[in-house]
């Protein structure tokens, strides 16, 4: 563990992420104001002692909304990445380990998915299934699957003919045991770096979709929604635009730095 924190990218990324997580944990128990409580007399107020980061066009407290917004971002990012990882891992491992016709078919599908810009794909899914938390998560995890599937597949293809796998087969181990208790540990490091980078892109995509009105819906406090509402008041209340922007940027930078750090430590940039 110490080795990891001696990597500057990983260290800085972790510190930012830790601060974000601290805000998240606090938001579970306490936010300065109710995130949907309006106070029209106090709308677009400057940062002050009552409202640390000011208020929005309905007089809602921006700090409270950002805290809940982080929760939404991280929740969606986590769900999307973990389900993308799970399915990508399953698909990639079977495809890479067994190869052959099955692999060809699966990889054609994955290539097709990858050929679409991710956000476009997510928009298509949301257009078909409707918006909301669950559908956003599903759309983002479909976006994440191809990347994980490809990385897992290449790892399995590389290792399935390695000596220790052959040796394991000679010792009488079955395919599932070889796949999941022998090959998998060898690619965890690559997968973890990819997961962190995918986390960053999931947060970006969620903000993007919500900004376009396709992800979360008002009045829920998504960072993307805040951004789209704030742009009308860019000149009157610049802090209102800046705060969600900076928050999204910090989250994305944190995960990218962690991902980069992991990649560097796993033997150089690929």
């Amino acid at each position, binding site marked *: 563990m110490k080795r990891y924190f001696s990597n500057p990218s990983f260290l800085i990324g972790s510190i930012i992420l830790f601060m974000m997580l601290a805000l998240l944990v606090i938001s579970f128990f306490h936010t300065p104001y109710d995130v949907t409580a309006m106070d029209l007399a106090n709308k677009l107020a400057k940062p002050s002692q009552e409202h640390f980061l000011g208020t929005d066009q309905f007089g809602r407290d921006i700090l409270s909304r950002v805290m809940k917004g982080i929760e939404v971002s991280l929740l969606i990012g986590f769900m999307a990445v973990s389900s993308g990882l799970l399915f990508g891992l399953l698909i990639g491992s079977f495809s890479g380990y067994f190869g052959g016709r099955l692999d060809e078919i699966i990889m054609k599908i994955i290539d097709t998915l990858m050929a679409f810009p991710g956000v476009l794909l997510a928009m298509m899914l949301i257009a078909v299934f409707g918006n909301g938390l669950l559908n956003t998560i599903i759309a983002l995890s479909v976006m994440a699957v191809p990347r994980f599937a490809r990385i897992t597949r290449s790892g399995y293809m590389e290792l399935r003919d*390695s000596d220790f796998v*052959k*040796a394991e087969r000679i*010792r009488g*181990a079955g395919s599932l*045991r070889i796949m999941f208790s022998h090959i998998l*540990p060898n690619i965890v490091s690559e997968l973890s770096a990819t997961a962190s980078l995918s986390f960053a892109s999931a947060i970006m995509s969620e903000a993007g979709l919500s900004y376009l009105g396709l992800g979360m819906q008002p009045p829920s406090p998504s960072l993307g929604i805040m951004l789209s509402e704030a742009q009308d008041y860019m000149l009157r209340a610049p802090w209102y635009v800046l705060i969600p922007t900076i928050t999204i940027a910090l989250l994305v930078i944190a995960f990218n730095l962690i991902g980069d750090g992991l990649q560097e430590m796993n033997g150089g940039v690929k």
Partner: protein
Amino acid sequence: MSLLSLRDFTLSFNEGGRLLNAVKNIFLDIEESEMVALIGESGCGKSATALSLMGLSNDDAEYTGHIFFEGKDLAVFDEREWRSIRGERISMIFQEPMTALNPLLRVGPQIMEMLLVHQRIDKKNAKKMVLQMLKSVNLADEERIYKSYPHQLSGGQRQRIMIAMALINNPSLLIADEPTTALDVTIQAEIIDLIKRMNEQKGTAVLLISHNLSLVKGLTKRAYIMYSGSIVESGRTEDILSFPIHPYTRGLIASIPNVKNRGKRLYSIAGTVPSLEERSNCGCPFAPRCTIRSDRCFSNFPKQKDIQGHSYSCFFSPDEIEERMNG
């Protein structure tokens, strides 16, 4: 009934419609608790034979003939039946102990897995058995070894781990595929001693695959000499080493440095082992490199002849070979 018996066994690969024989019509027997050597140059089909004994040839491989093991014909086994044989009844150790262990798992649990895969046993007893096994392959400080990762161990230690792994389920046959080639000379002797001791203590039959004639001397009772996928000579190891008959075996033995030919240029067999594609399907496989070949050597495969348990496949009689080679 022998423990293992290959009857007219042929292993061929289908390469673009052509059938290439990696191993051709071989007969090989191993009795219970016996140590047998299979000797030949690289690429002559030794390892292909060993892998087919584990049911692990490539997908495009085809066998004909029979592999009788403990009275059952393995040639008709399916994958599930094979798995109950591999690592349980027949085990294998390889040339490269460096790469045959999973680099990310501790060695103890890797050995333990062998028990968990093949036997109904709880982890506590399994661990006890593993520690005992480590001790019996002369790895002192077995608790520390148990917790080590492969990279923390030396080549010799890793080969001992491989042996422990191979023997922990008490298989009746151990295939040792060039077990000492990657090790340095002092360790080689220790590993060979260990294999021999295990053979004596546990009664595990051993098929020792090697290109090293001096290694098998005094170790195995019988030996098979393989060339280009065929067995060219077989019999008691001493007989083969002291009175080789087949021109190939003679060449092999003549190319070992010894006191007698000190200072002279060392004999070498001209040419190299033909690759699979280059092998001709008729005639004696050694004919192209043989110094005493005649025309018929290229058209027919010589029948196996037997002199008191010492068999060889050559058209010429031992005396003729002797005469022609020295003449």
